[in-house]
């Protein structure tokens, strides 16, 4: 297998596996946020603001995987 083919496969695997964890994490986060909004609709802006912040954190891990895959592919 030559280098180019290996690079493509590596880039695909990097982002593929890297997106599993954050995807599940964001789903759990949003589910809990929805639940708490449902129980206490008055606190919606507070819950929402913190949820966005926490989702950005979880997404950052997926972004690390994406950056690695871009480095593999283009460098």
């Amino acid at each position, binding site marked *: 297998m030559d280098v180019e083919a290996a690079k493509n496969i590596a880039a695909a695997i990097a982002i593929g596996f890297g997106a599993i964890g954050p995807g599940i994490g964001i789903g759990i986060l949003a589910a809990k946020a929805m639940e708490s909004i449902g129980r206490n609709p008055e606190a919606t802006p507070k819950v929402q603001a913190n949820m*966005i912040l926490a989702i*950005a954190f979880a997404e*950052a891990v997926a972004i*690390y995987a994406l950056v690695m895959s871009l480095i593999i592919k*283009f460098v």
Partner: protein
Amino acid sequence: MNISLEPEAIFHLGSFPFTNSFIMTLVVSVVIIGISLYVQRNTRLIPRGFQNLFEAMIEYFYGLVDSVTQDRKETEKFFPLVMTIFIFVILSNWVELLPGLGTVGVNEFEKGKLIMAPFIRSGSADLNTTLALALISVFTVHFMGITTIGAVKYAKKFLVSPLKKPYFVGTFVGILELISEVAKIISFSFRLFGNIFAGEVLLIVMLTLVPYFIPLPFLFLEIFVGFVQALVFAMLTLVFLKTAVTVSEH
């Protein structure tokens, strides 16, 4: 379609390359300074128009920062840095929405190969910029901690003596916290860089495939992502500043 992790140099001044993202950060800085000078020059006691918008923004963000620090004096200390980071990062992120991203760049020069250097590339899509912002944030956090509660007390947060309550676990956790400070720098810079660079790659690919109408949802996504990433950077800096100046009482 030219996608490269590092920004392309438009021209060189001696041996210093003026890359497209660097030029864009200069443009964003000039815009920010220009608008600020304009608003400041014509301030009235009863605000009208543009000044209204700024007062509303500042009031809202003061409230936001207050909700984290719970102390007006600390807010007044932290607000300039946090707000400047927010404004700079959000405008720098939104540069990638300008028409001409990756397409308008009449420079073709060789660096071994013939490549096209586009004029427009967001400042945050350059690891240099995001690393610089991350370093500023983290070092300001440490500096604020040292000046507010004193160097000895601040060092005691990381170098916990093994002869006191948590006995060695405390020391271990302190060393881990020290390492995590370095991880913060990496995490800050890569979060912003990854989000904005990936957004640019997405937009360039979409524009290459279908130039009209189809990239619209992606442009909206990028508006949102730019705003959220700026907010996350600013709020994280704020939260770290807050934890650096609080002394945990036992």
